């Protein structure tokens, strides 16, 4: 048991913070996030014999965590793969025409330094599916295939969720830049 436990603990250790970040931002409250992380880790521990060493432990345990989150939040599973209207599909294209967005693109770091909390909160405005997919890609660097496996949705849905999530966040960022005069301040 010691070897198995040691192996599991060693693989889990580098993923702890990422698992927490993900659960904390997908779930609505900290208590739910902790419940989901604990449940996922314990399921992974019990099923560790089925994990193939040398394959991605990260993808494996995130898949379990995603399932725990979906099971714990009634309706998330139903809604996470629902294809919503495409009203945001062309948002990035529309944003292209806005001067404020050009300002954001020109020099994004100072703005994000100032509004990082607002941007993190803006993620709550995403649909559950968009939120799960975006966080796996942007924060944890998962490939589309890994996201599809973790959240159990088709790759096409991953791409559309990701596109909408990015468009919405860019829209929020642009609105903030406009309302605070950031874009204008960037002009010489």
């Amino acid at each position: 048991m010691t070897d198995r436990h040691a192996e599991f603990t060693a693989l889990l250790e580098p993923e702890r913070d990422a698992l927490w970040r993900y659960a904390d931002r997908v779930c609505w409250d900290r208590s739910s996030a902790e419940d989901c992380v604990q449940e996922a880790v314990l399921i992974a521990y019990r099923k560790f014999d089925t994990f193939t060493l040398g394959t991605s432990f990260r993808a494996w345990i995130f898949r379990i965590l995603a399932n725990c989150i979906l099971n714990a939040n009634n309706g998330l599973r139903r809604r996470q793969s629902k294809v919503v209207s495409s009203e945001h599909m062309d948002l990035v294209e529309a944003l292209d025409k806005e001067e404020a967005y050009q300002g954001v693109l020109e020099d994004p770091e100072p703005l994000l330094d100032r509004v990082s909390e607002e941007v993190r909160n803006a993620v709550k405005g995403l649909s559950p599916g968009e939120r799960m997919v975006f966080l796996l890609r942007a924060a944890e660097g998962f490939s589309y295939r890994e996201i599809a496996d973790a959240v159990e949705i088709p790759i096409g849905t991953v791409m559309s969720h990701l596109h909408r999530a990015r468009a919405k966040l860019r829209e929020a960022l642009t609105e903030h830049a406009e309302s605070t005069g950031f874009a204008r301040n960037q002009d010489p």
Partner: protein
Amino acid sequence: MTTVNCRDARALLMPYLDSELDAAATASVQEHLAVCATCARRFEREARLESALADVFRVGTMPADVSERLDARLVEASGMPADVARRLDERLAAEASGGVDVRPADAPPAPSPILRLSASAWRWVAAAAVLLVAVTLWFADRGAAREDGPDWAGRFVSAWEAAAERRTAPTVVDADGVRAMLAAHAVGQVPFPLTGRVHDHSVELLGAREERFDGVRAVNVLYDCCGVVTSVFVVPVGALDALRGAKALGAEPVDLVVDGVRARGQVRDGALIGVVSRHASGLEFEWAD
């Protein structure tokens, strides 16, 4: 190769930045970017924004109380006896209050030392690894100048014992030390194993040996901390040119697969140093995806 126009290229922008396009589509986009300064600038700006956005969401660590409760649940799931679990709690409390080992001196050794490793202890194992490598390499460097000296091994042992008593772990590995270690073939001269206690953890330096892979020379240091046998690898960065390809080795940690096990490495003063949380019988490196 299919040529794409500006609109097609924009449609492929995000999948391209995500490295999700196949080779043909990637080549098409790159061909367009090479001739269209407007799109090239746009791609570069979007990549920068995406990177800055990602940084916002990469912040955050598991709170200590959540981490401790998770450790406790894992211990519970492992079937650890209640008295051992109690000692774990005591240890966690001791670590939180400054790292004092409150286990009675006459207490029997824990049946499963690894179970006593909390998250903070695991992080300490990594720090201990750095200490061991720093010590090893520093003395290898000194040994290079006097590799035939009669008391070289004795000096190493004395220094090891002194370092094991230190309360702070040096974290700088100098490149000259790595080169000296490799040049002097000093790894075979130390009378391993060496035992000691570092930061209240029992540590046994099991050995160090020179490894070769694809013509790259590296040092593999094995040590046992609290029952966990761990490998620390040290590779001069210059020797990694053939392996790293497009990977830029900067100050940020890099993911590797060493001997089939995911590992984390970091460049310090010209050497890639990393820890594999189990004994690596050989050093077969590849970059993680």
